[in-house]
């Protein structure tokens, strides 16, 4: 009984000191990277629902080096002429991957049976400058591409420069304005379709919720809001509007992180209900079940998978 009384006292004083602290504008925290602005919403709402079988096996050979094998069998959609019908072609492929993880250098390579090679590099050049490179080589001509990103992390801002292979140049900048609000912008210029664009983004986060908004000259306006109800539960909602092509999508989803499993569900304004269940059967063994019902197009996709290691 005696040990119940002191914690109540200290909790109250902690709360008071948090409110009384003045905002120190010269010491703001570093903001999240521009492309991860909406990462909480993406984790809850854009779960990767798949169709068919998926099996991933990864084995660590060393503390830093690991190999991965993955098999995916199932129908893949082919874009069809009419929007009503979807053409599905059954495919199966195997992907071999090798990963090297170091505190300063990360190398990831993936090779698929249809001849595609995918490589990613992330290197910490200095304490504040990070180089990320991403390349994909394919058998088909003119489909290979590469992209290099240089990220600089300042005390309360981040700047990024992006260079792509078909004359693609982009730059993003994001700055913390208050301890909770960060604002950012991006510009890009693509050489091949001769297009340039500019966009702005804002993110407001507290302990319990995160709200972000993005506007781009390519026509997209996206807003999302994630509320953390408890340690295990969070609810998210998302609204995307394209003012050039006039399509609107709103979705609501939940994310339950329990001890042995993780359930994510989402319902859409296009009439799509989808859910993903990941369950930990034993140490290192995860079982995945995915379902997606598209009531408008009457297209139902179900998948199951196993992840080892």
């Amino acid at each position, binding site marked *: 009984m005696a040990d119940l009384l002191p914690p109540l006292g200290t909790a109250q004083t902690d709360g008071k000191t948090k409110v009384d602290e003045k905002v120190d504008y010269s010491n703001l925290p570093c903001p999240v990277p521009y492309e991860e602005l909406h990462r909480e919403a993406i984790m809850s709402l854009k779960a990767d629902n798949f169709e068919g079988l998926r099996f991933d096996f990864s084995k660590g050979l060393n503390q830093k080096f690991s190999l991965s094998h993955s098999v995916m069998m199932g129908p893949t959609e082919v874009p069809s002429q009419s929007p009503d019908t979807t053409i599905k072609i059954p495919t199966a492929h195997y992907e071999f991957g090798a990963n090297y993880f170091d505190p300063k250098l990360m190398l990831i390579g993936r090779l698929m049976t249809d001849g595609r090679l995918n490589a990613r590099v992330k290197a910490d050049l200095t304490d504040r400058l990070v180089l990320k490179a991403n390349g994909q080589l394919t058998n088909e001509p003119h489909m290979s591409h590469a992209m290099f990103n240089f990220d600089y992390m300042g005390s309360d801002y981040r700047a990024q420069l992006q260079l792509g292979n078909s004359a693609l140049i982009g730059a993003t900048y994001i700055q913390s304005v208050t301890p909770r609000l960060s604002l950012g912008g991006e510009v890009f210029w693509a050489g091949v379709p001769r297009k340039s664009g500019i966009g702005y983004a804002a993110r407001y986060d507290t302990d319990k919720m995160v709200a972000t908004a993005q506007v781009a000259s390519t026509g997209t306006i996206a807003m999302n809001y994630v509320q953390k109800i408890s340690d295990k539960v969070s609810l998210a909602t998302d609204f995307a509007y394209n003012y050039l092509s006039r399509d609107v999508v709103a979705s609501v989803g939940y994310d*339950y992180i329990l001890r*042995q499993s993780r*359930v994510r*569900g989402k319902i859409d304004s296009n009439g799509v209900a*989808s859910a993903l269940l990941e*369950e930990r059967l034993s140490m290192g063994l995860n079982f995945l*079940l995915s379902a997606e*019902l598209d009531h408008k197009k009457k297209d139902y996709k179900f998948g199951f998978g196993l992840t080892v290691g």
Partner: protein
Amino acid sequence: MATKRTGAGKSGGRDSSILAKIANHEIANKGRRAACDAVYVSKKLLRSTGKAAWIVGTSFLILVVPLLIQAERDQMLGEIELQQASILGPPPPGALQ
């Protein structure tokens, strides 16, 4: 029997024409049309209720049922842990964690 049933005040020969007059009267036509409309509307209502029930039912099956199952398993796991903690008691001060 038939004459008794056709009742007071109407003679046998003029029965069919009076019945025909009643049957072809405007009110009877309106009643028929209303009955047809009612059947049509109720068929449509049944079909759309059926469609809505299907959509709601399958979405419920996908979105809610796995969640309930997993939440119940998590709760049972918590109960088992609580039981084990109460049986074994607190660990002694020098124990390995």
